[in-house]
């Protein structure tokens, strides 16, 4: 019964891995792969001197840094605050509503974003009504806003969903701990900090390791939806660069070389983050 699984994995996971070899070749779709000439590290040298490559690295790291620093704590805060709500029915309703956006497609969510941020859109109207700006700002075509747009839309869409895992961890805390702390005279903030946060620390650590190891990745569906010719300067992430070079410009080998390095670095980051976390907090994935 396992054999079909192995076969599937071989075809869809291991063959593509084997095909990474074209990063060292001048591959052309017109001839059999093994007849393509080996060119060694040529493509690697090429992208290292490509400005667009470094720009995509900068954009990826910039967007990831914002997401990691300003985005990572938000689901934790949301879970902590939700936990303080006492009416079970209200708590459940808020939770149900909060993860609805996770199930809405990026086409829809991106569509709303583009509309709201566009000329005459909700955001411009609102900011003008509040006196925060005098003229309309073309958020969608001004590159300097792009990173923040991805951050805000991502937070809006995924906060509730990401919080589930923390909410689950909080639900597993022994209520006796809170009672004991209360007897010792701990106030609400002290209980929240010393019991709740400490108890979910391993969960936080694991998710943080995963988040750190993912900094070279970007939410492709999101960026692909929100990018346009005007904001490309700040929007082209590494993933998008690989896509544009490989599938739009047809430079398969070149793109694969970028991809290859990206995967190796991501793997390295995973081990590094895991190792540091193990040293610093004692929590790790493996």
């Amino acid at each position, binding site marked *: *019964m396992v054999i079909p699984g*192995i076969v599937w994995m071989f*075809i869809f996971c291991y063959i593509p891995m084997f095909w990474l070899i074209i990063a060292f070749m001048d591959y052309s779709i017109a001839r059999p792969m093994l007849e393509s000439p080996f060119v060694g590290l040529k493509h690697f040298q090429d992208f290292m001197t490509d400005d667009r490559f470094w720009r995509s690295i900068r954009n990826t790291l910039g967007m990831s840094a914002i997401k990691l620093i300003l985005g990572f704590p938000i689901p934790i805060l*949301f879970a902590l605050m939700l936990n*303080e709500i006492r009416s079970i029915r209200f708590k459940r309703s808020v939770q149900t*509503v909060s993860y609805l956006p996770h199930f809405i497609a990026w086409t829809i969510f991106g569509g709303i974003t583009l509309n709201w941020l566009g000329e005459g859109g909700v955001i411009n109207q609102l900011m003008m009504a509040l006196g925060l700006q005098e003229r309309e700002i073309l958020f969608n075509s001004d590159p300097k806003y792009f990173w923040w747009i991805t951050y805000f839309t991502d937070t809006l869409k995924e906060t509730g969903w990401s919080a589930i895992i923390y909410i689950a961890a909080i639900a597993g805390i022994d209520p006796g701990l809170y009672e004991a702390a209360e007897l010792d005279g701990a106030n609400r903030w002290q209980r929240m900090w010393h019991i709740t946060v400490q108890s979910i620390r391993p969960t936080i650590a694991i998710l943080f390791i995963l988040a750190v190891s993912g900094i070279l990745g970007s939410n492709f569906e999101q960026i*692909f939806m929100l990018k346009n010719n005007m904001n490309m300067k700040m929007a082209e992430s590494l993933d998008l660069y690989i896509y544009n070079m490989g599938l739009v410009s047809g430079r398969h080998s070149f793109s694969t070389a970028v*991809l290859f390095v990206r995967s190796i670095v991501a793997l390295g980051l995973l081990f590094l983050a895991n190792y540091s976390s193990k040293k610093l907090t004692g929590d790790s994935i493996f």
Partner: protein
Amino acid sequence: MDRRKRFRRIGVFEVGNTLLMLAVCFITLYPMWFVFINSLNAPQQALLGTVNWFPKELSLASYSVVFNDKNMMNGFYVTTLRTVFGTAVHVLFTAIVAYGMSKTVLIGRKLYLKIALITMLFSGGLIPTFLLMTKLGLYDNFGVFIFPSMYTFFNMVIFMSFFRTIPDSLEESAKVDGASDYGVLFRIVLPNSMAVLATIALFSAVYHWNDYYQGVIYIRSQDLLPLQTILYKIIAENSMSFIQQQAMAQFGARLPGNSIKFASMMVATLPILVFYPFIQRYLVKGVMIGAIKG
């Protein structure tokens, strides 16, 4: 904890926190409401997207444009077909592999798990996968929606851990009665795994319904485009050509306006919104299984 104490302490914090949560709900729900009311606007009305609560001029004209659009309806059909088949194949295939993997008597089980784990950490990525699909003849082929997504390691692990909680005696008694491995799986194990089946099916269905990216990369022919890919083209690439023709026929030379975009968005989200209340109770349960075991 005792009740008296709880009620005594309703103070600034409680009020503030409740308001905060209400704000979260508002921010979450308002965008959907916005799409809904603007889709009901008369096409001439919704050119600008200002803050509003109700349609200015109630009209179903935009919906009639969407429902009369051949491409949109074909996309709806492709997506439905893809969701139904994709989900069924994913759940069955993953469950079968997971059932095999859940047996400790399996020879080389640890090795298989290692082989599978590597795929989670390291993969061929976009270009090699694209080339493979082309070689397999899946480019511009409906199969590209089904085969590559028929299995994921993560879901397999969730199934596997769940199957291991089912008592062996149950399966053994079925085997004594002469059932085959597949018989045990389909008659005993799966009927006892409804919660996890529902969750995985749900995730898979949502993926298939919402995905636009596969359609962008692998599909060229108009009649194989999934609904979300068509929507992507309308919204992000602003190519309303086909829908524009419909609208022009109905409203003269007037620009079709946002309300048609919004109506298309509503149509593409409706199944999610309709099923969401029924399935959301499985969600948390399913995520927990995944989070704890996975």
